[in-house]
């Protein structure tokens, strides 16, 4: 239930009439036991809706990667509720998690993680071969502006190009949610912009719920909502009335 009249906009908002993609309540993740226990997530609540662009901000160790891993089905919560389209991810077994990742989630890694022995097109085809309703790899590459470099191997592409291939790989399966962990972390400012543009463009074009982790507070202006994490809690939620364009954000 949305908390009406709260001072800061609730992470549970904004459109109560819509069905959330993720419904999260009291989500906690504790690593280890007893004295050695480390609380990475200390109970967070939020709902995420289709077509939103969410940015997670926070210092290193604040819990944003742990949160992203929970959403991506890479890790299971210690406590709390984590519903994806009404289904409890915490109760998924290994094969169910695999098919969740296969069909619903697109990942973009900081280090791109392309398969060096496959060309750009093949890196995408590798994934589209195994999922239900993919787009042709060529279309995915055109979407990220790499239609000309389809048959290049990763070693023949620049860092930004590699990351765009990785994004094309992530969206080619038409995922419901796109998770990006510091997608520009390994790139210079200019290249980072082209990558962010690609993410933003896809979010608008395809209406994919997109969650981006970043250190860069300025990037946050391109988001619908910005969650700031600290010590495993969401300490601030900012709702942007208007999403700034990436170009504009970059001066």
């Amino acid at each position, binding site marked *: 239930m949305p908390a009406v009249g709260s001072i800061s906009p609730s992470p549970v908002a904004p459109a109560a009439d819509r069905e959330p993609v993720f419904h999260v309540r009291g989500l906690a993740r504790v690593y280890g036991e007893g004295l050695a226990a480390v609380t990475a997530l200390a109970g967070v609540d939020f709902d995420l809706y289709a077509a939103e662009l969410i940015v997670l901000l926070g210092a290193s160790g604040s819990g944003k*990667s742990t949160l*992203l*891993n929970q959403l*991506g089905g*890479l*890790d299971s919560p210690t406590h709390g509720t984590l519903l994806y389209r009404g289904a409890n991810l915490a109760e998924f077994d*290994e*094969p169910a998690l*695999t*098919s969740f*990742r*296969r*069909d619903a*989630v697109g*990942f973009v*890694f*900081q*280090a791109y*993680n392309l*398969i*060096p*022995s*496959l*060309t750009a097109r*093949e890196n995408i*085809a*590798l*994934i589209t*071969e*195994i*999922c239900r309703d993919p787009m042709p790899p060529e279309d995915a590459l055109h979407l990220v502006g790499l239609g000309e470099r389809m048959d290049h*191997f*990763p*070693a*023949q592409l620049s860092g930004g190009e590699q990351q765009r291939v990785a994004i094309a*790989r*992530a969206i080619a*399966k038409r995922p419901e949610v796109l998770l990006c*962990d*510091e997608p520009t*972390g*390994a790139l210079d400012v200019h290249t980072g912009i082209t990558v962010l543009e690609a993410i933003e463009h896809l979010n608008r074009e395809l209406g994919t719920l997109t969650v981006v982790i970043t250190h860069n507070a300025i990037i946050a202006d391109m988001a619908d909502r910005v969650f700031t994490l600290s010590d495993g809690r969401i300490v601030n939620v900012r709702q942007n009335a208007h999403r700034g364009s990436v170009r504009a954000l970059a001066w």
Partner: protein
Amino acid sequence: MSLLDRKLLRDLRALKSQALAVALVMACGLAMMIMTRSLILSLETTRDTYYERHQFAQVFARLKRAPNAVRNQLAAIPGVATVQTGIAVQVTLDVPGLPEPAVGLLNSLPERGELILNRLHVRAGHLPAGGTARRELAVGEAFAEAHGLKPGATLSAVLNGAKQTFRLAGIVLSPEFVFEAPPGAALPDNKTYGVFWMPYKELATAFQLYGAFNSVSLTLAPGANEREIIGAVDRVLAPYGCRGAYGRINHPSHRRVDDEIRVLQGLSVAFPLVFLSVAAFMTNSVMSRQIALQREQIAMLKACGFSNRQVGGHYFKFSLAIVVAGVGLGALGGIVLGQKLVVMYHLFFRFPQLDFQLDTRVLVAAGAVSALASFGGVAGAVRRAVRLPPAEAMRPEAPASYRPALVERLGVARWFSASFRMALRNIQRRPVRSGLTCLALALATGILIVPNSFRDGVSYVIDFQWDVVQRQTVTLSLVEPEAARTIADFRHLPGVVHAEPFRFVPIELRAGPIVRRLVLQGLPAQGTLSRVIDAEPRQLTLPPRGVIMSAKLADVLQLRPGDEVVAKVLEGREREIAVPLVGLAEDFAGTAAYMELHALNRLLFEGDRISGAHVVVERSRWNEFLAAVKNTPRVAGCVIKDSIREGFRKTTAESIGLIQKIYMLFATVVAFGIVYNSARISLSERARELATLRVLGFSRGEVGAVLVGELVLLTLVALPFGLLIGSGFARGILSAVNTETVRLPLVLTPANYAFAVLVVAVASALSALFAARKLADIDLVSALKALD
């Protein structure tokens, strides 16, 4: 312990299963080498000590009869050190509990004093006392054991037509009969052939040889020329019916021991070297990977002031640890297996004592070779690592560059799945390593072929030699050759349904400098019992002229069909004739020469005579038949085919069977080691890639398929090569171990190939399973992190 060494221990612990796989492969090669070389050493030193302590003679001669005075003529030959004369006669024995007659070789003990040459080793009881009428015998250990005879037992022998009963005074061993088998027989049959010693006077009197001798042994003075002395002995003894003197090389027992050593030599080098090279390659791949993984650590160590030497030394120590484990396990395995095998030699060879002696020189040399090989394997990787400037080494390695694989450019790429392409390109990007892995897999397949080809060869010999070649039930030999019509007497023995005559004549074959003594067999042109078969295999018809011989004998004499060979008849009227070699026979035990029966008799100028007959006996009248044979004094020997076959099965086949099992174990260990190691290295190199695929939605099975795809491809390529290599190994090793006494044919069956493929396939599957289990441990979250 320095901190670097502590790091070494912990790294080793982390790599324990791979290090163990390498050490085990190395251990297999070393164990094989140490086992065979130590057995060679054990046999050689035991034989040499035995020969020396018991004064084994160097030149031997048999003759009809010469007065004792001739002994002085022999002693006077320049270069002769010691001469010993005596009597040796073959008699028929009646052993309690043995239905068929047995053959005994009775040797004389000197009238005064002890034997000077070929001295006996008394195992139990005592030597028969001369000069008494107690009728005592000493018996060779193999025969005594075969019949459970103890000193005090009694035994009947027919001496010159008169049956006499003897008491066994003692059980003895003689350096002349380390291998106790009738002359010319490749296989022992200790139930029907025994060696005995009795006082000269009793033996000589029974055969009207008192004051004479028919057997000579002598030793040479240092530096004497054996060939010259043999010639001189022949000249002295020619008037007395000497069949020609011969040296140790033609001595049946000595030759058999020599051949066994040759077999071991054939097994001791090439095959273990294959294992050791595979181990060196595996060390190299494990260490290269380890060093690649520790790139940043190496940079850090160098940045902190460790010298190249210290860093290099650290990784050499790493491989040294593997070598030490391999050498330790190998030595242990070699000693344990050697001790097991040495026991087996008691089946064949009778030494006073045959103990396993570890060949420490080989142990040290093999250890050093292994260490060098694996250091050589590591050197390149270490050099590359220490050469990197620290700053560069701290950075992650640049992404590997790939190209479309060669086969893809042929235009067939569209049918390939992405994971198949990944495998293809990975293989092509590192052609040397892929090639070596492929070679190692092929070797693993190949070495699996060898032991089973031994097994198949043995079973082929058992069937071929005793079902295809020899189809008689029994071979009966006469005391002296008799007229051809005697065959009728054989046919009239109870239970005999078919009989075919043969004429056996001892001959010496000479081709250039090479001389061999053997029995020339005269057989019916198209016999149905003892047949002459070629390599096809197809029965050969013995032509009216010329000789057919064992292919191995022709090989030794360096003869080809069409060549002439000089045959010296060593019986009756001595004569030399040149006969053409007209065909090659396939046989596996001993060597033989065959002629058509009448053609042989014509050569001998003796009229139609036979030495015995091969007969087929009805099972139902078997005992009746044996009883009749026992009571036929003209029959000197009775060789039952099935007991020879059984003897072969129990001795040769069993020893080869044991070697086969040991080799099989080793080959399987190597096959698993190679495949497992390749899978582990591939897993380590591609951990990040595989984790990424998991995050992107690949199931564990699909990622496993990507991981093993490359291995499966390499295995598929390696298998046919492996079968080829294995066939080559089998051919090489069999030709190295094939001797004139026993040979194995090269038999390569589909089942053998299938088994090798199966083992490698199972090894691959299990290794893939292991790797897949490791895959479950891959940290998915780590894929999200940046390279660090």
